[in-house]
């Protein structure tokens, strides 16, 4: 049986460089990622921290940073009491240019059976990536209220 994982593909009218910048710059992420900073020097082996409204929600280590093609890091939730019991998972962003459009494939894997993390990120990523797409294409992020996603343990 296949392991539980989350895969989401979206197409964005931008360049791989701009998309890479949007994924790795807190100036950008704050605007489309629930006011989250992504703190890292983006070198393989370096630490990364996701900091939402000043509170660290997730930490990890950079596994791949092949600008502007592939970015991956481990992803360990550290905020919610229940979610933080789950092991670190892994996020991969693959950026593939097609003319004036970039195909972005996000893969998030390494979840435990019956855990709540998979459900949470399955609700979170479509909202984050929809907002990212809007920001890059129209200059306006889609402000999706986090509470609207109905993720257990996250408000």
């Amino acid at each position, binding site marked *: 049986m296949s392991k539980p994982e989350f895969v*989401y593909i979206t*197409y964005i009218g931008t360049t791989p460089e701009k998309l890479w910048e949007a994924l790795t710059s807190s100036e950008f992420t704050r605007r489309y990622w629930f006011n989250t900073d992504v703190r890292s020097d983006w070198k393989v082996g370096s630490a990364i921290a996701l900091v939402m409204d000043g509170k660290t929600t997730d930490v990890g280590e950079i596994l791949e940073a092949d600008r502007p093609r592939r970015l991956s890091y481990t992803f360990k939730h550290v905020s919610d009491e229940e979610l933080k019991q789950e092991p670190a998972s892994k996020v991969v962003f693959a950026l593939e240019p097609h003319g004036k*459009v970039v195909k972005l494939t996000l893969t998030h894997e390494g979840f435990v059976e019956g855990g709540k993390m998979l459900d949470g990120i399955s609700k979170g990523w*479509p909202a984050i990536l929809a907002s990212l797409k809007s920001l890059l294409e129209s200059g306006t992020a889609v402000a999706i209220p986090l509470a609207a996603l109905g993720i257990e343990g996250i408000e």
Partner: protein
Amino acid sequence: MSKPEFVYVIYIASTPEKVFEALTDAEASKLYWHGNSVDSNWKVGSAFALRLARQEKQDITGEVLEYDPPRRLAYSFCAHDGSDGGRPSRATFELERQRDQVKLTMIHDQFEPGSDVLEKVSKGWPLILSSLKSYVECGKVLYAPWYEERPLATKNAAGAAR
């Protein structure tokens, strides 16, 4: 074991009415669906067709299963290309207003386990729905990478994406 299905969620800064209109309007669909257009009178039980811009391909046909504007739309979907063995699957669109945006949930299901339908629709819908979002939000559409190799004769299809 659960039946195979494809589920895709996308958020669009618009109203359910406008997104529903884009899903059911032939001219709008032609723009974001790379020259392909939806064709139906949208009465439950009536015929549905996706008219394909590439003439050598047979249109996708089906039947309107649900039409509840601006909340729900469903039609059956038979591709006639051998991927579904001539048996229709089902495409359902659910629209939910969330403040000043729409949560669009697209579900493609009711195909046979082991058929090629899941792989095909898993590739197709993310691009179509990404393009729909761009069209509704900024009047832009995205082009289909696989149309590059064999450009369309009609100007309206791939050309509209440039």
